[in-house]
């Protein structure tokens, strides 16, 4: 018997309209765990580097984490993986909500889509009954609207729906997949779904998910709940509120936005407004929130309530989470009321809340600087709010300038030319980033930005404090109950870290320490992504409820696969390497691994070079960021090593790079 997982994937060929229930190999679970790990294995095996995002051979994989559907609190992630139209690299965006557990109860660990349907369809999974159905009546409908229509139509109020909006249908490179209170937004995976002609996947399941050692498993879960209660009563002192408590950033509950609005950049990620958060703003935004926010809501089997139902008078209700609360507001130099209103439309259209606002601000900056002209924006309103609505409407329909902007700032700048690249300044590996611009290089963050393959900082950071605490006694206090560390040395790193002087950024933590810290933080995220665990209870947090000491036990008692800290770390390293291997085979190299040039004012090219050199070695990669043959064999990834040898990937001449300029990575055939 398989525990925690169902042991079956649903393989759907949209071209041939063929549906198969395929038993999976339990040895793959032992090697790659589940979720992201086995998603990566499927992509490696079946999508060669010559295949681009919109080729029928590209797979779109919805993988439930291995422990989704069990008692583990907050374990509800669907990991969606495919080749991204934006980056031509592997995209792996996660969504919380309720979809992954429902899929498990229906009897499947993954839905693997391939091929393309010529007509718009939706997929209806009801336990053993799986159908591809006509969705022509849903064409152009909003993502949330679609979910509501389908639940009614099928008379299945408990069915869970993942759907795309107009942006996905029109293959906007940053289209998201929406699922009620959650969404998988990064990397344009919604565009791939639209390209495959799939409007929605509806799931209803009523079967059992078993665990291997029930009593032990329950005990672990109860300990997690106890810790959640403890943390709720005892926030971590000395850090900003969203980091002091558990959960995805508590943007819906916490009203005070002084920190974000004064430290993050406005407009096209350029302008800091240091005195923004006045009493008047405080009052006005509080009122907006109180009028609009109906209820704080959770994902499946989680008490954290990171989302909210938002009902603005006159607009359809939607659900919001995290930072999209501010991204539109700040890009448009507007207020919270505008932010919540446009987010309603953007959620129905289904676009990434990080990229979309930035693309629009970028377009307006090009207009302001004469690189685009008024003729490119016929009929656009004068006011900033109006302009954003106007642009959003055009982008998701790919009308006029919207067609160019729909490909993201990188490709739009390529198309526009005339110096437009200067304005696509906040990207990593072609993907828009959070609007943060800082002063002094932080070596830990440098490595995370450069090498993180989720290409979103929130999906690699956590665990280790973001900056030093000023007072030694505060640091000591922080370390006193910091049992989550994998090794005592991390406490020492933190104790010695000072805001100023010899032991401060950028030369402390030392290069070697940075490697340890980054590797630990990244490892925890990769483990979460295989288990289906929410980072909000785990890897995103310092002192989280889940950590390296209890996670292996969850696998052992839940999935019945013997794990300890070493084994889980080794497995995570294996599929993390596989993700890199996929990207390396698609042309990603050291030259692409860099934060936006203006991310920090004070840069240290020599040090940055040393950081990358050392970290690559630490990870088992050569100086060009390619996993070495020896390391691959050590990981049991001989098939990757053989492929790399055959493709001559190790024969490439490594170019020395020592500039901090944003040099763009020109992917092969991706501009269309």
């Amino acid at each position, binding site marked *: 018997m398989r525990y925690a997982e169902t042991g079956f994937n649903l393989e759907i060929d949209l071209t041939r309209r063929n549906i198969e229930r395929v038993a999976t190999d339990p040895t793959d679970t032992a090697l790659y765990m589940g979720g992201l790990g086995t998603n990566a294995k499927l992509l490696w095996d079946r999508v060669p580097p010559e295949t681009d995002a919109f080729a029928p051979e590209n797979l779109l994989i919805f993988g439930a984490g291995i422990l989704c559907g069990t008692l583990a609190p907050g374990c509800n992630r669907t990991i969606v993986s495919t080749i991204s139209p934006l980056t031509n690299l592997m995209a792996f965006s996660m969504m919380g909500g*309720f979809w992954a557990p429902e899929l498990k109860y229906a009897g499947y660990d993954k839905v693997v889509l391939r091929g393309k349907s010529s007509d718009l369809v939706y997929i209806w999974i009801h336990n053993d009954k799986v159908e591809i159905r006509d969705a022509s009546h849903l064409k152009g409908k909003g993502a949330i609207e679609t979910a509501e229509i389908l639940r009614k139509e099928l008379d299945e109020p408990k069915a869970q729906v993942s759907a795309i909006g107009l942006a996905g249908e029109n293959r906007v490179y940053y289209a998201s997949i929406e699922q009620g209170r959650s969404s998988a937004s990064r990397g344009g995976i919604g565009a791939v779904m639209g390209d495959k002609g799939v409007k929605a996947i509806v799931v209803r399941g009523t079967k059992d*998910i*078993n665990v291997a050692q*029930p*009593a032990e498993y329950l005990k672990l879960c109860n300990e997690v709940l106890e810790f959640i209660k403890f943390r709720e009563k005892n926030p971590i002192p000395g850090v900003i509120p969203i980091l002091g408590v558990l959960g995805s950033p508590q943007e819906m509950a916490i009203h005070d936005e002084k920190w974000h609005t004064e430290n993050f950049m406005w407009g096209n990620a350029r302008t800091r407004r240091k005195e923004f958060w006045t009493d008047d703003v405080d009052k006005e935004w509080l009122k907006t929130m109180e009028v609009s926010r109906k*209820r704080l809501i959770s994902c499946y089997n*989680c*008490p954290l309530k990171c989302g909210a139902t938002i009902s603005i008078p006159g607009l359809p*209700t939607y659900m919001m989470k995290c930072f999209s609360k501010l991204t539109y507001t700040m890009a448009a130099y507007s207020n919270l009321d505008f932010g919540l209103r446009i987010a309603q439309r953007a959620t129905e259209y289904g676009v990434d809340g990080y990229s979309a606002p930035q693309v629009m601000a970028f377009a307006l900056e090009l207009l302001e600087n004469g690189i685009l002209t008024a003729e490119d924006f016929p009929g656009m309103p004068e006011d900033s709010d109006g302009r954003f609505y106007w642009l959003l409407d055009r982008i998701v329909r790919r009308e006029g300038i919207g067609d160019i902007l729909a490909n993201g700032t990188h490709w739009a700048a390529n198309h526009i030319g005339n110096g437009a690249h200067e304005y696509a300044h906040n990207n990593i590996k072609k993907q828009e980033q959070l609007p943060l611009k800082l002063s002094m290089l932080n070596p830990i963050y440098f490595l995370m930005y450069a090498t993180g393959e989720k290409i979103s900082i929130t999906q690699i950071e956590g665990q280790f404090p973001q900056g030093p605490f000023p007072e030694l006694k505060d640091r000591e206090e922080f370390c006193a109950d910091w049992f989550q560390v994998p090794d005592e040395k991390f406490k020492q790193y933190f104790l010695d870290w000072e805001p100023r002087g010899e032991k401060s950024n950028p030369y402390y933590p030392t290069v070697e320490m940075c490697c340890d810290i980054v590797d630990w933080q990244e490892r925890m995220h990769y483990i979460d992504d295989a288990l289906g665990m929410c980072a909000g209870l785990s890897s995103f947090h310092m002192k989280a409820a889940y950590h390296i000491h209890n996670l292996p036990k969850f696998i052992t008692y839940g999935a019945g696969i013997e794990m300890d800290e070493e084994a889980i770390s080794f497995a995570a390293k294996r599929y993390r390497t596989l993700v890199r291997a996929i990207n390396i085979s698609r042309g990603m190299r050291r030259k692409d691994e860099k934060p936006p040039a203006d991310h920090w004012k004070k840069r240290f090219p020599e040090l940055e070079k040393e950081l990358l050199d050392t970290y690559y070695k630490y990870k088992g990669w050569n100086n060009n960021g390619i996993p070495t043959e020896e390391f691959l064999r050590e990981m049991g990834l001989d098939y990757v090593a053989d492929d790399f040898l055959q493709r001559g990937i190790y024969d490439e001449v490594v170019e020395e790079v020592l500039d901090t300029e944003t040099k763009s990575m020109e992917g092969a055939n991706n501009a269309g």
Partner: protein
Amino acid sequence: MQAEKKKKVIKTIRIDVDKCNGCRACEVICSSFHASPKYSSNNPARSRIRVIRDPIADIYVPVYAGEYAVAECAGRDKYTIDGKEYDECAFCRASCPSRSEFKEPDSGLPLKCDMCSSDPTLEKPLCVQWCLADALIYEEREEEVSEETTVDELEVDLDALANKYGLNKLNELLAKMTLAKKG
């Protein structure tokens, strides 16, 4: 016949729908507790508490499985509270032919909340323990009640089967099974 008065502990769960965040932890732990062996599996479709949930309409009603009903109601009521219209059966505890709630997914047999009856008795039902939102609050009080006849679970199940297939069919089947067992 006049029933004898007796002291009885009434167990109640106070449900605050305003506090419910829709997480369904109550369903998860309930189905796990009632699995056999205990906690060995999960399946909200077997749970004896259901969250009637419509996030867009902001409707969240945790409902406990009550008695089994032979037939569906003849007339139904719709409630509007605070401008929100609740489904006809939203507050009903019955396992009844009109809906799929409170029935075992494969057999269709009725489910009923037993307040996590177990030996030793739990301090609080598990749904209450797992609802960190405090939407479910457990209370006990003593009341004088007339002694009632208790219907055990098997009887309820059999009754349901009899209603579904007819008593004759059930008798036939039982006879057949008895013969088969004897060999």
